[in-house]
C-alpha cells in the first residue's frame, strides 16, 4: 500500500489530492501504467509523463526509479516557485 499525491493541474484533472493504492508496481513507470488502466481521467492526466515530475518519499526521482520501500509517491507538473 502506498500513498499517492497529486498537485496543481494534475490534482485538478484527477479530481483528488491524494489516495491510498495497493500496487504490484516495481517502478514509477509500472505504477503509472496501473493507474492508466483504471480510468479515463488517469489516462488523460498521465498522457505525457515527460511533462510531469515525480517525488518518492518527498525526494525528486526519475520515472524508472524502483518503488521498493517507498511509502509516498507524488506526481506533479514542473515546479514554478520563486
Amino acid at each position, binding site marked *: 500500500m502506498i500513498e499517492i499525491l497529486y498537485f496543481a493541474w494534475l490534482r485538478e484533472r484527477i479530481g483528488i489530492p491524494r489516495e491510498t493504492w495497493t500496487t504490484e508496481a516495481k517502478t514509477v513507470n509500472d505504477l503509472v501504467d496501473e493507474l492508466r488502466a483504471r480510468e479515463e481521467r488517469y489516462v488523460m492526466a498521465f498522457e505525457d509523463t515527460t511533462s510531469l515530475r515525480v517525488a518518492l518519499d518527498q525526494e525528486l526521482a526519475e520515472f524508472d526509479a524502483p518503488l521498493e520501500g517507498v511509502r509516498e509517491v507524488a506526481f506533479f507538473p514542473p515546479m*514554478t516557485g520563486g
Partner: protein
Amino acid sequence: MRVSLQSEPFDPGTELTAFSTATQGVGAIVSFSGIVRDTDGTLEAMEIEHYPGMTERALQSHAQKAVQKFGLSGVLIIHRYGRLTPGEPIMMVATSAPHRQAAFEGADFLMDFLKSRAPFWKKEHRADGADWVDAKTTDEAALDRWT
C-alpha cells in the same frame, strides 16, 4: 540559517534588517525579493500551491547546500503559499558572506533552485478564469550553471 514557509505576508526590508542583525562579521549581504506582478492589469490573485512536508525539507536542504557550496555565513529563505494579490512579496532570499561574489552567487543559486526544484506551483486568477503558470525551460536550463 532560517527558512520560513508561510501564508502570512512579510516585508522584505524588515526581514533584511533582522537578517543583517543576526549575521555578524560579514562583509556582503545580498537579498532578492520576488513580487506578484500584474503585467496587463487583469490579474486578480496569484495562488501558490505547495507540497507540505516536502517543501520544508527541500528548502532546508538547499539552504544547507548553498552554505557549503559558497561558504556563506548566513542564509534566509521565505516563501509564501496561498492566495496573494498583485504587489505583494511572494518570496525572498538573503545571503551573507565575507565577500561579495559568494553572496551574489549564493542568492542566484538559491533562486534557480526555488524556480524549478522546490515544490511550488503558481496559478493566476483573472476575471475570465484561472490558469496554471507554465514552467520556463530557461529556468530549468539555469540549473546547469551550478553542476
